[in-house]
């Protein structure tokens, strides 16, 4: 592996000072399941690697009394789904965190890292968007917040500016009678990269969908929030097949996929509609529990 200096900042101020001073030569390390591979294979370079796991704000995991959730950017997947109260409150997020890599990857890989890696197929990202997650970012000039749907800017690129560090993800409380779900299509049962994916949340009043968020992954340069797909559901019945079809068609219309080794444009457009419908059915079923 290329040589670098290993730093272990214990405060946000220390970390952002180095990130500002060194710019692209400094990289934040949490789980390392992407960064260490990229450094080893020469796909990224770094003079400084900042292990951010000793910074308290990045290692917090808090389910607040009002039902909102704060996930520190360095918290590994297993710690989130291993928390029974959090897992019960956000089953749609757990769909994502339990299928990123295998058991050993989930022991290290952080949600913040999955987001910063900004893969079009990142499994946590459509779920976070559907759950209205917000990125809490520290920089030398202060703090700012960015909704997750605006964080990824291109494959492998995110909106962090020089000297900025993703500190945590803030997820609002889910209203009563809400449910969420994430589904991806892969050609095997486990350990693969999404060909197309969908994250959905709904809020119900009886059988009426009063609110919905539909996000899709692996079908565009970044995961997308599809406002039109969400709008097609709101105000309609959970059994209104024409509304559900309109939602899926809107998601398909928003998809701008590429053909690659995992799938063709046509297959991905088809699949994303299927994933949206199936995730929606699970989200509705969970909202009714």
């Amino acid at each position, binding site marked *: 592996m290329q040589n670098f200096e290993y730093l272990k900042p214990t405060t946000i101020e220390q970390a952002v000072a180095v990130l500002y001073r060194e710019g692209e030569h400094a990289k934040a390390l949490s789980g390392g399941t992407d960064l*260490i591979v990229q450094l080893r294979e020469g796909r990224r370079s770094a003079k400084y690697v900042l292990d951010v796991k000793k910074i308290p704000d990045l290692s917090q995991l808090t389910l607040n009394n009002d039902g909102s959730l704060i996930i520190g950017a360095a918290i590994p997947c297993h710690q989130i789904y291993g928390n029974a109260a959090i897992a019960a409150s956000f089953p749609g997020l757990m769909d994502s965190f339990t299928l990123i*890599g295998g058991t050993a990857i989930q022991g290290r890989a952080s949600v913040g890292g999955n987001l910063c890696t900004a893969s079009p197929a990142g499994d946590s990202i459509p779920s976070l968007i559907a759950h209205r997650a917000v990125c809490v970012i520290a920089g030398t000039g202060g703090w700012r917040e960015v909704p997750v749907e605006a964080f990824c800017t291109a494959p492998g690129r995110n909106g962090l500016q020089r000297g900025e560090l993703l500190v945590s993800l803030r997820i609002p409380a889910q209203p009563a009678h809400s449910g969420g779900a994430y589904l991806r299509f892969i050609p095997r049962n486990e350990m693969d990269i999404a060909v197309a994916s969908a994250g959905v949340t709904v809020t119900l009043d009886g059988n009426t969908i009063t609110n919905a968020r539909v996000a899709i992954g692996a079908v565009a340069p970044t995961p997308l929030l599809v406002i039109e797909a969400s709008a097609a559901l709101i105000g309609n019945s959970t059994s209104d097949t024409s509304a559900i079809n309109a939602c899926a068609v809107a998601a398909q219309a928003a998809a701008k996929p590429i053909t690659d080794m995992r799938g063709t444009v046509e297959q991905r457009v088809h699949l994303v509609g299927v994933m949206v419908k199936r995730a929606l059915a699970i989200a509705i079923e969970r909202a009714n529990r």
Partner: protein
Amino acid sequence: MSKKIQVSTTINGEPVEFLCESNQSLLEVLRDGLNMTGSKEGCNNGNCGACSVLMDGRLVNSCLVLGAECEDTKITTIEGIAPKEGLHPLQQKFLEHAALQCGICTPGFIVAAKALLDTNPHPTEHEVRYWLAGNLCRCTGYDKIIRAVLDTAGVSS
């Protein structure tokens, strides 16, 4: 060259101090620095699980952990699985079920399976298969490995 980093850790119950380069993985430290060659290097990118170890009781790929990250952690490797005399039950069942051929993946499977049984002593076949999905074996076709783990847990398959 950057200066070497001194790391204090516990490996298989024994306090261990080692010096490592900032860019050395835990796997490299174990194999090249501490002469503990039971953990294997397969893919070196987190896909194959041959380098599986426990870090503070949690299953991780040691190729994706820097040696420097191990300060104040407890590491368990394949060398720490068996009792002083004899074999760990998982090792015995792997033998009985012929759950290995070339053997390169076996230390990783044993460590990963131990991590599973430590947290879930009576897993279903489905749970075993998903838990071990990050460990690759190109010889056995997996069935014998799954049977060995289930037999160790006292679960019939």
